């Protein structure tokens, strides 16, 4: 699935990933490919991205939004934690 993480300062991540793990207002969730469309609010925490080569990337966020659409695309707009 395609993932894009945007912050006001820069594009934090863009590319194909296997899974995204993040803390939302409803608890910690992991988004895998073909997740159902979802919009959620992120809580302070770390977004863990596992790319296709099993490499893990971490992005601390203060707040933000998660959007999963029907076309297997995930968009995260995040306020970076300082």
């Amino acid at each position, binding site marked *: 699935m395609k993932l894009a993480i945007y912050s006001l300062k820069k*594009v934090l991540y863009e590319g194909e990933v296997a899974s995204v793990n993040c803390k939302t207002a409803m608890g910690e969730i992991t988004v895998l490919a073909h997740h159902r*469309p979802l919009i*959620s609010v992120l809580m302070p925490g770390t977004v863990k991205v596992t790319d296709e080569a099993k490499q893990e990337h971490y992005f601390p966020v*203060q707040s933000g939004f998660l959007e999963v659409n029907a*076309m297997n695309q995930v968009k995260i707009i995040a306020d970076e934690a300082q």
Partner: protein
Amino acid sequence: MAESLQNLKLRQKGVHNINQITKAMELVAATKMRRSQEIALASRPYAFAALDLLSNLSRITHEELPPLLQKREVVPDAHGVGAGRTTYVVVTSDKGLAGSFNNALLRDFEKYATRERIDFRDPHNTFVAIGQKAAQFLEKKTGLQCEKFTPLEKSRPAAADVPRETQGRSLMGFVRVGDYVSVAQVAPIAHLLTSGFLEEKWDRVIVFSTNFRSALRQDVLVREILPVTFEKLKKTAEELIPETGRFAELVKTHRIPLFTSPKPGEGGFTESSKKIPEYLIEPAPREVLDELAAHLVLMEIYHLVLEANASEHAARRMAMKSASDNASELSAALSLEYNKSRQALITREIIEITAGADSLK
């Protein structure tokens, strides 16, 4: 009688020094301008993703809009003047030497004030200055002491950081915001404006700032940022791209797509808009919208301050360029005069010597 040689030399030196200083300032301003623009442009993907999310959300939910997005009934006061409780935000630079940058903005603000019959002493009006120059101007106009506040880099917006309001009419200033403002620095400003709006201290927020159109052209723009509307946000995000210059071509490159309105039957967006009702929204549409609206206001103010900063540097660059051009011209004229009077001195001396030699014969 021509000026003495020493005097000319002194003036020449002075002009030369000024030339060097203004040239250096010109170069510094040029780099800073480019950097400000880069920062502003880096936030475009975020802006469009956020707007996209907002448009998706507002199409699926039929809930009441969050208060930040609601337009309030603006009632004229007893005298039929004014436009309800309004906050005016004036964005200028902290320092001068930027040509007509600050003057143009303040003049436009004053014109607007006269046209709209804004009473600077009306307690319904709140004024927020961003930048020293705006603070000074508003202090003079309102006759109030400006409560100045410097947002620090890396500080999280704490309610205690935000200046408290004086009862009734008030004037607040955010100064020394500096170049390349960070999100953390504008957060207190956004917090102040949104909380005041939500607490119904004011019904709308109007911002006067400078829009960077190109390195040679900056316009004063009047924008109503609260209540938030989709069109206004979109416009600000689009205005981030200057009309000409290094970054103008970015519109065409695929990384920063221009916003396309998701109308049915218009390419890529169609499929997604059909599937939209399937969205699962956590925790609730209302809460997501509330949160998003606050983020959008922060983003908008961030953009405004960055644009104003880029404009400031552009204006300063132009001012310094003409100053150093003038200095070069003056320096050339002075050295010509210096050489002329030096030559005249030598000629006179030779004449005196030959005259002296002649008289000895």
